[in-house]
């Protein structure tokens, strides 16, 4: 186990028991006892020193009087000490140790014979004896009995401190106990939150699965129709030679395929799996470019008006998703106005302040339709929620709008008054980037002879054939490996190649991304382009810095990406 985590766990375990508090309290007690003992010893030593000094002063004063037997002087010196209640007994002794003079308060009388010794404590009395000497000649001795502080007085003195310390210990114990319980409760809460988050995640996943189930049912029907159009169209194409009819059939097939692709794209956007490729967009120009498409999608009795403020800030969104979102809202508006009406699309700058923290651009789409009932307002963004009759709506329109706005970092808001109309507001964050210079479209698709060979790694037979066909159309030669291992072998044995184009999801031990890394490791500088339809895979490819073709892609997109990769 990680030692730091082990330490953290230990600290948590300690924090959750009051043991640390008890330990601190005990340490406090022991420390204060030790301090008291030390103080007591210090005070005793101080007292002994004081009394010893007093006895020495007395001895020095008594040197002369004792030597020359001056009783008056001896008596005066000893009497001087009687004034202090500190001294219980004071005695002066001659050189033979016999008592000369002295006094003793209540208690034992002075000893008749004095013997100089170290200071001793007898009960409450400290006895200090000292020699009276002058220039090395012993002239006598003194005896001083001093009162030490009574045990009861000392106890009273310590009691106050003891109470404070005991209170401190109790406080520490109480605090740690409460901290321990709070910390344990906090841990339980954390665990509960984690559990709840897991449950919520599981619920979300379940809802997603349910949605996918409904989606499969709903979309399968649409797809079946499209496939029907395509397959019957192909069949009829084989049976007819009339060029006009053939052209019409091909148109029908192409439209069916486009609708299928669009439907898939919408589903992926809803699932937030489609890789968004944001570009800097000018709102007004982008919407004006939609005018044709809008008029074709809407009925003749629905009029579209634009109102754009001057100097609109640029925004950064995926342009095709932006188009789809505008179209979806417009189609909803059309359906809300069965008897015809007006759709007004407006855009304004919405500076920071008020209810937004950043500069935004607000696009509003207003219809004059029937409005949305207040009780339905909450549901309009739910996937598969539709007020339209079965078969005429998928319920994915506003879901796409919602998913798109979420992934673009924007906001969507609906205001509706029944029988007056609905306004959908799209709020986009202002982009700090400037508009890119438009590319020259003529450069993008060039049927030039590249004389370049592309090594294709693709496990699906049909896709591989199609890719080979598209490459041939673009003027490239190609070779295909069905697995990553085979591709690497081909790279070694049958080169040289100018570019490797690999699917990302492939059977075998090595996936497309690892294959790409291996190719670059073996042949640095070899351009590698990856293809995928999955946004997760796309994100990891982008993170590794490989150019990417998102399936399904057009021949133009392929030409552009490959051309770009080869130029570098």
């Amino acid at each position, binding site marked *: 186990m990680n030692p730091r985590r082990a330490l953290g766990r230990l600290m948590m375990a300690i924090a959750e028991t009051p043991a640390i508090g008890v330990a601190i309290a005990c340490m406090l007690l022991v420390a204060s006892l030790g301090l008291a003992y030390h103080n007591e010893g210090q005070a005793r030593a101080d007292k002994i020193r004081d009394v010893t000094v007093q006895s020495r002063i007395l001895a020095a004063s008594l*040197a*002369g*009087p004792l030597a*020359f037997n001056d009783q008056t*002087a001896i008596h005066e010196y000893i009497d001087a000490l009687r004034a202090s209640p500190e001294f219980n007994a004071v005695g002066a002794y001659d050189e033979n140790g016999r008592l000369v003079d002295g006094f003793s308060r209540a208690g034992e009388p002075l000893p008749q014979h004095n013997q100089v010794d170290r200071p001793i404590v007898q009960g409450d009395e400290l006895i200090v004896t000292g020699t009276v000497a*002058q*220039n*090395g*000649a012993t*002239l006598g001795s003194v005896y001083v009995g001093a009162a030490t502080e009574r045990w009861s007085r000392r106890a009273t003195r310590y009691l106050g401190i003891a109470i404070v310390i005991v209170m401190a210990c109790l406080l520490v114990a109480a605090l740690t106990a409460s901290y321990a319980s709070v910390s344990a409760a906090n841990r339980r809460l954390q665990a509960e939150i984690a559990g709840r988050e897991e449950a919520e995640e599981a619920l979300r996943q379940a809802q997603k699965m349910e949605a996918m189930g409904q989606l499969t049912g709903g979309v399968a029907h649409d797809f079946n129709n499209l496939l029907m159009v395509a397959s019957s169209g192909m069949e009829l194409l084989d049976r007819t030679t009339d060029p006009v009819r053939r052209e019409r059939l091909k148109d029908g097939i192409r439209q069916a395929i486009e609708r299928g692709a669009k439907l898939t794209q919408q589903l992926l956007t809803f699932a937030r799996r489609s890789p968004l490729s944001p570009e800097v967009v000018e709102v007004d120009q982008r919407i004006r470019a939609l005018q044709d498409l809008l008029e074709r999608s809407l009925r003749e009795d629905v009029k579209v008006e634009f109102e754009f403020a001057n100097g609109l800030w640029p925004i950064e969104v995926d342009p095709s998703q932006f188009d789809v979102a505008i179209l979806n809202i417009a189609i909803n508006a059309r359906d809300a106005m069965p008897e015809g009406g007006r759709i007004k699309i407006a855009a304004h700058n919405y500076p920071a302040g008020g209810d937004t923290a950043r500069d935004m651009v607000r696009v509003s789409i207003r219809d004059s339709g029937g409005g949305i009932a207040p009780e339905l307002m909450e549901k309009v963004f739910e996937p598969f929620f539709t007020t339209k009759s079965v078969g005429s709506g998928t319920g994915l329109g506003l879901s796409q709008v919602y998913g798109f706005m979420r992934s673009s970092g924007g906001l969507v808001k609906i205001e509706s008054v029944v029988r007056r109309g609905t306004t959908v507001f799209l709020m986009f964050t202002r982009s700090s980037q400037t508009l890119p210079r438009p590319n020259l479209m003529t450069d993008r698709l060039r049927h030039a002879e590249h004389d370049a060979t592309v090594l294709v790694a693709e496990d699906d037979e049909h896709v591989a054939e199609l890719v080979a066909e598209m490459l041939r159309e673009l003027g490239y030669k190609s070779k295909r490996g069905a697995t990553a291992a085979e591709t690497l072998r081909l790279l070694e044995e049958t080169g040289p190649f100018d570019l490797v184009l690999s699917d990302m999801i492939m059977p075998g031990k090595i996936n497309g991304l690892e294959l790409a890394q291996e190719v670059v490791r073996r042949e640095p500088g070899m351009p590698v382009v990856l293809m995928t339809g999955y946004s997760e895979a796309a994100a990891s490819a982008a993170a590794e810095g490989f150019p990417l073709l998102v399936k399904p892609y057009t021949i133009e997109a392929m030409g552009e990406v490959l051309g770009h990769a080869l130029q570098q």
Partner: protein
Amino acid sequence: MAHIRLSAALLALLAAAGGGPARGAQPIEYAVKASYLYKFAPFVQWPSTAFETPTAPLSICIAGSDPFGPALAEAVRGQRVNGHPIMVRHVEAVRPGLACQILFVGGEDAGQTLQAVAHEPVLTVTDHSGAGGMIQFVMVAGRVRFSINQAAAQNSGIAISSKLLGLAVSVNR
């Protein structure tokens, strides 16, 4: 027996001094004086020239007749002052270069006798007031006391402790 011997000694002293100064003196008086005589030593500071070595004996010299008898020698046995053992000596005549630190001269005219050691670091002690010397024993209310001639001590380079000065009956500065 001791009484008779002491009386004999006193008679001898009287004969030597040519007078009767010790008449009526109690034997206890000289025992006290004997103890005082050597107890002066700790309270007195001699110049360093007074001793040959730091452990050289401190001599208490008794000039002429000895009124103390063996009591003095008994009392000083084993006593030391500042590392100097105390020794009692008897000298017949007072003359310069006796090598005494304390010189006791009995009799009332001791002052003349002491002229011989006037410029030597010798603490001179006499038995009567007005008899000269640095310290004179006097009797006050039946007790043995002493007066001090500090000027004389200073002239000889001897310093006397203030503790001793404080106990003196009088001090001649």
